[in-house]
């Protein structure tokens, strides 16, 4: 068992960028400062991982420590995983005193009542976020530490961020445990996914810049008048100002949450002159449009000022943070023309 744990720690260390291994190990706090000093950080990563493994073997690291290192790694590099947001519902209105201890107890009990072979670890962070790592086994096999699910939950909120394991069959059990432990009644997946966990949080917790109108603008800034060469006379000044204003109305002033893609599934009827006899069937016309970018919302924001799209952009594109979803299904009823958002 020890060998397995040490090997797991070694492989976790291998995933960390070389320059940051020291910092992560310090955060972990399992190895003492004196032990860390003995490691030669100038050798290859392979070499470093072996020396860390050896030290862990000497200090007889257990599964809990290994899991903690994995949580720390995932907390520092959450973008390595794909996170999906789930929404929970409640029927009552009673205020609840969320207690982390009770939550842990209930969560563990709920999962272990159905499956004994699981490893569950918790860690609470300063922003009231609870990180849960679950390694799944089967009734007859030990938990697989390499195929873990991660859950990030902020107490007393209806949102859960889940990065599911490849073993998706355990997802219902996980959701069930979440609902019970946090005193909710049901849970469903929202159509919102991204690599950037913090941006998902910003979207559902309404922390992104929403451009509220107030009497006290925090910064009265006009981008158009910045860096203007007095010798240049702008012909399209009013048009540019209009675009800038409209763009600001739909995106606000601040930085946008980071999303990787937005997907639109069309299920609309093909409309044509009956005489042409094209597609007589009443089957919907199916098509899928996917916008992807390393930073989707920022790129959408810069479309109109760059002159690549008309301002204002289609609400289908600008409603992403507002509706907290990046998967859309467009059906006939809504009578939205596909052209309206394929313009870029």
């Amino acid at each position, binding site marked *: 068992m020890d060998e397995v744990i040490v090997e797991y720690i070694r492989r976790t260390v291998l995933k960390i960028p070389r320059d940051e291994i020291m910092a992560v190990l310090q955060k972990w706090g399992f190895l003492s400062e004196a032990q860390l000093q003995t490691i030669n950080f100038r050798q290859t990563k392979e070499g470093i991982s072996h020396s860390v493994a050896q030290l862990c073997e000497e200090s007889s690291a257990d599964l809990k420590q290994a899991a903690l290192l994995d949580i720390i790694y995932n907390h520092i590099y959450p973008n390595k995983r794909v996170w999906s947001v789930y929404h929970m519902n409640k029927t009552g*209105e009673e*205020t609840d*005193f*969320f*207690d*982390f201890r009770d939550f842990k107890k209930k969560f563990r009990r709920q999962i272990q009542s159905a499956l004994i072979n699981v490893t569950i670890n918790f860690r*609470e962070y300063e922003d*009231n976020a609870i990180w849960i790592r679950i390694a799944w086994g089967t009734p007859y096999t030990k938990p697989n530490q390499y195929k873990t699910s991660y859950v990030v939950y*902020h*107490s*007393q*909120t*209806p*949102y859960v961020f889940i990065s599911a394991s490849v073993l998706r069959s355990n997802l219902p059990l996980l959701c069930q445990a979440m609902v019970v432990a946090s005193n909710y009644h049901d849970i469903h997946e929202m159509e919102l996914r991204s690599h950037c966990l913090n941006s998902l949080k910003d979207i*559902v*917790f*309404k*922390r992104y810049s*929403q451009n*509220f*109108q*107030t*009497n*006290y603008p925090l910064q009265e800034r006009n981008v158009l008048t910045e860096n203007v060469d007095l010798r240049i006379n702008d012909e399209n000044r009013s048009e540019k100002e209009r675009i800038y204003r409209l763009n600001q109305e739909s995106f606000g002033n601040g930085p946008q949450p980071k999303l990787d893609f937005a997907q639109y599934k069309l299920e609309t009827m093909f409309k044509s002159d009956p005489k042409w006899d094209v597609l007589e069937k009443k089957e919907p016309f199916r098509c899928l449009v996917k916008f992807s970018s390393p930073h989707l919302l920022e790129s959408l924001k810069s479309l109109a000022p760059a002159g690549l799209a008309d301002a204002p952009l289609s609400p289908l594109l600008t409603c992403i943070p*507002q509706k907290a979803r990046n998967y859309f299904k467009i059906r006939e009823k809504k009578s939205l023309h596909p052209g309206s958002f394929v313009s870029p």
Partner: protein
Amino acid sequence: MEEERNSDEKENALCGRSLTAASRDGGGRMPAAPLAQGKVERGKVYSGDGVLGYLEMLEAQAHELGLKQEEKEQQEKKLDRLKARVQELRARRDELRAKVELQEKRLLDKEGVMTDPAQPSAQTVLEWKVKSLKAMLQVFYLTGISGKLTKQGVCFCISTAYEGTYLDSYYVDLLIKPLVKIQRHSVPVFIPLEQIAKKYLQTDIRRFLSVLSDHLNAYVGRRRQADQLEEHFSDHIDGTLQRNSLCNLLVFNYTVSSNSKTFPFNVRLLYGDLCCSLPTEAIISCTPGTLPLLAEMAAAHSNAFRHMALHKAFDSLINAKESQN
């Protein structure tokens, strides 16, 4: 001038001599004619040391006169200096006057070119009005709830404060056309906004805002107290302060010493009223069991936690402990 003065001096000298002569003769003031006669008589009377004495007297008089003359000369000089200064200042005054006049003229010219003479005053009045309106808005902001009309409704800003410190501001953008509806907001998810809206939004917006503001202020207040406790008393707390998002349950441990023994206290503060920043329940549990003194102390501490801001209560308890020691 010079000549005049010299003649004056001569006269003075003459008078002085005649006066002394007159007094010595014991008579009243004599006419100038008998002077020569008197002189001769005096010479007769004081022959011998009389001449020397007379000379001495003359010397003293000359000295005196010299002093006076010097004084007078100095005064004259001073007068000249002052007169020159007056001249100088007058010239300066005229110069400045001219400058002011010129400037006034220039200003008038400018305004005359730009607008009618009546308009600038109207503009200043407008500016003044804008200024006072802005001050009004600032006052509204300071009250905690302020709003701005938007195209389809109103955008309210609820600014929170605790113990005189302004903290976060939250926004609620309302649509008012068919029905009052929340379009967007930045209220934290764990604040029961939906429930509050269901209760009051359609019927009483004022009430809705005040209840929401109470919730937000209480939340911010609880959070602030917990932050302050962590900030100032982290070395008195064993482990960490545990809290949830709403900060309506705070759990922490500290040690109490009594009779040179220390006992760990575990505190659970429950804030049952979400519109209140003071706990409704403060449960203190101590492991060693039921020492009556300890139970009494726990009750006193619990009472302090329920009636005072967390960091203040803790501060007073610590101070009480230290003074006991």
